């Protein structure tokens, strides 16, 4: 009885993916302990975040797929409403209007959109699966562009780019023709010049700064430079756990959040980073398998987009820390400290697991 209950409890949780995720979050706790200079309270809080995320994931994983399908539109609409509210009444912090104070809690609606956008777009394509025309792709693009515009205005360039990526993955997997992609690219490049000339000097300056951190060696450039020093000085084997000088002498900024990969690489070296990439690859590969095996158009698009987006998060963060991408505030998925991002990711993995569990049940 207990065994059966246990089985019932565990059944929807995909074992391979759970192994990958488990190892990643365990790594998170270990690295966080070092990055926070042995702050057990912080590690405990992160652990609590993980438990909350686990519960959420389990709930979603148990949800039948048609719930997911049906929830797409309401979630998207809710997200858009919240984004509009933020734009009007949001709290400003660090020069950006991203948070909405609900009295009991402060939420960041853009986080919700990370899930809502692929969900909505997958739903839309599912609805028009039978006869997809260029017009459908155009409408889907509009569904994507609306939240991105609002988020980019906050401004939260990092989130906007990641949501754009997740939407693009849906479009790509839904078979957007190469010709259209190429034409859009060319049109975009052609529009870049007049758009550029329309920008204010300070806006241009900020964009240029993204691509040349040395220009701003004391601001964001300082982050990149110190991150690269931390990573590079880690060497092949790393400086040893709790021994990173860049980390423990305060040279590394944002080391529990956006730059936690630098902490990890400094202390565990190239070998450690290699293993960490391997862990990510396990999760991503499993995501690909689930996507390939998914039974409906909706689930395929959704699973594919979620998997690729997860990879994108990891890649953008690591690319930023190692200095091959500009500094945009993106946390390292499952490793960086923070409950919201953990929860959003858990929802995504919950959906993936649900897609996997219920693939037989909704076979058409």
């Amino acid at each position, binding site marked *: 009885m207990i065994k059966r209950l246990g089985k019932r409890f565990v059944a929807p949780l995909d074992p391979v993916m759970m192994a990958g995720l488990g190892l990643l979050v365990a790594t998170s706790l270990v690295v966080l302990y070092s990055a926070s200079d042995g702050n057990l309270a912080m590690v405990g809080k992160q652990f609590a975040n993980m438990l909350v995320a686990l519960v959420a994931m389990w709930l979603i994983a148990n949800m039948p797929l048609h719930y997911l399908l049906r929830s797409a539109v309401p979630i998207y609409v809710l997200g858009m409403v919240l984004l509009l509210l933020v734009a009007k009444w949001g709290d400003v912090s660090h020069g950006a209007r991203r948070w909405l104070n609900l009295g009991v809690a402060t939420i960041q609606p853009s986080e919700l959109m990370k899930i809502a956008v692929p969900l909505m777009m997958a739903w839309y394509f599912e609805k028009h*699966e*039978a006869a997809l025309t260029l017009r459908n792709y155009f409408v889907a693009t509009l569904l994507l562009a609306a939240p991105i515009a609002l988020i980019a205005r906050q401004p939260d360039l990092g989130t906007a780019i990641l949501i754009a990526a997740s939407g693009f*993955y849906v479009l*790509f*997997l839904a*078979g957007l023709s190469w010709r259209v992609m190429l034409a859009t690219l060319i049109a975009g490049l052609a529009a870049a010049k007049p758009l550029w000339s329309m920008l204010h000097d300070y806006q241009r300056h900020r964009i240029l700064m993204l691509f040349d951190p040395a220009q701003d060696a004391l601001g964001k450039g300082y982050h990149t430079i*110190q991150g*690269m*020093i*931390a*990573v*590079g*000085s*880690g*060497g*092949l084997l790393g400086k040893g756990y709790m021994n990173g*000088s*860049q980390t423990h*002498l*305060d*040279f590394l900024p944002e080391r529990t959040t956006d730059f936690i990969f630098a902490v990890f*690489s400094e202390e565990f*070296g*190239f070998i450690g*980073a*290699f293993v960490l*990439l391997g862990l990510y*690859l396990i999760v*991503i590969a499993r995501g*690909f398998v689930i*996507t*390939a095996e998914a039974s409906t*158009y909706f689930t*395929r698009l959704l699973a*594919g987009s979620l998997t*690729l987006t997860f*990879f994108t998060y990891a*890649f953008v963060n*690591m*690319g930023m820390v*190692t*200095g*091959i991408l500009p500094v945009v505030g993106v946390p390292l998925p499952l490793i960086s400290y923070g409950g919201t991002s953990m929860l959003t990711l858990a929802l995504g993995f919950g959906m993936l697991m649900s897609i996997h569990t219920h693939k037989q049940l909704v076979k058409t």
Partner: protein
Amino acid sequence: MKRQTELRNHQREIHLFRLRLLLSLGFVLLLMVILLGRLFYLQVVRQNYFHTMAENNRIALVPIAPNRGQILDRNGVVLARNYSGYTLEIDPNKVVGLEATINELAKLVTITAKDRRIFKKLLAESHNYTTLPIRSRLNDDEAARFAAQQYRFPGVEIKARLFREYPFRETASHLIGYIGRINEQDMQDLEAQDLDTNYRGSDYIGKGGIEQSYEKELHGTTGFEQVEVDAGGRGVRTLSRTSPVSGNNLILTLDAKLQEIAEQAFGKYRGALVALDPNNGEVLAFVSKPGYDPNLFIDGIDTETWDELSNSPDVPLNNRILRGQYPAGSTIKPFMALAGLHFGTRTAEQTIRDPGYYMLAGSSHRYRDWKSGGHGTVNMFKAIAESCDTYFYGLATEMGIDKMHSFLSGFGFGGKSGIDLEGETPGLLPSEEWKQTRYHQKWFAGDTVSAGIGQGYVLVTPMQLAYAASILANDGVGYRPHLLRQLQASGKPAEPVPSVPPAFDLHLDPEDVAFVKGAMVAVTKPGGTAAWAGAGAPYAIAGKTGTAQVIAIKQNEKYVESQVDERNRDHAWFIAFAPAEKPRIALAVLVENGGHGGVTAAPIARKVFDYYLLSKVPQPLQVQAEKKEAEDD
């Protein structure tokens, strides 16, 4: 049919999707490889580089400035010392609103307008500063008051530091010199000498006198501490430490008491005095009046005080001993007499008739003797004792300028004495060749006539005359004048006084020397030009007075001291050594606008001799010294 199409569509769709998915996987793997490549590049290929960067981040090399050596006189009296105290320092890079911050600080500690002026000047001049002092020598109360409020003043801090102090203030100021903050030029000089690393912790460098010329001895070796620092630059722990080595103490040849007596003896007069030990070249007294307070220069002098000092007609900053070039006047006569004997131009007994002037053959120009009507029949002895100009006009003319040049060069005329201070000027001992090179002019017979009594082109510094007197006192054996007697490494006993070898021997005929010395003794005896100064001395003084003209007197005019503006009056010279038979001290005294050497300069020399040879302290000074002691209690 429709169903089939749908099915085919469906299959095509799956096919397309799988293809796209595969492409995505390829994209993922490609980016992963790029990321791994980047990590490999950073962590393996360039690990050394980033390791160094991380170590540079982590480890700061903090220089520890050495303590500067002290300067002592020959008896251990401290002339320059260090004491610890607090300064209030501002880092202009970290302070927002410098003026407002200083105003706020002024509510806690006294900050005078002068402090502000000095700070402004430092700000403008300083090189690569981190912090600059706004106030030095804070008392304990002020330090405590600021410490309590320090949180309000980011970028302002109290530093415990060693201060340089010159307790004798104006006394021997030109000799001791001073230290000042290292400026751009100093930094360049240090870099050129490859010494800049040793000055990384130092703010000060010697800028004059002994402080400058023995900078290398005094400064010491900078120590270093390897400190692990965090991103805020705060030291976390010390990794290693190399202690600094304090600079050496300098024990000078100077006798501080003698120096004080000599300076007092000048009274209100300006001038210079150098006293040497003829037996080894040790400088016993080194007076350039007026002096200045070297303490003013340490933390940068404010513009007003500087202007006052540098624009003063008394030129207190000028080191008259080394840089003041004056006509030698009659002080040259003993050397001229010796040259005459040496070259056989004249014998000691040979006499001339002095009508009160000298005329060159075939010229009607009269070279006047200082004594109108003349000295009558004059031999060499009388010529020295009474300082007969006519005798030496003739002697010089008969000898010729080039012989004169070669002989007097031996006594250091026209050249640097080689004393261990910077900025010495060589004076001028003319020759035919010199005039040709300098003025492209022929040497005239008249030039020789003036040169014979130390006028015309002849210029000497007080240093040179004292040196010449010491060589004569020591029978032609010269010792290089020097100020450093012994070195003393910190915490160790002083090195033994090295025995100084003579620099040269002129190999003079002892009879000639004895004769000239005898005539010089007569100068200080009744009938001589300095008889008054020599009166009652229990030891014999060999001396020679001199007068250096400041303005030229026209052919038919007469110089009347009372009718000449004070600053245009003649400078008074006196050179002397004593005891005459076995000299222990030789000196040159210059009293600017002092008139006749026998009246103003010689009495100063007498006071110096009395103290040095008899330990006799002149009355007024003794009173003052007692008063000072009473105040100190």
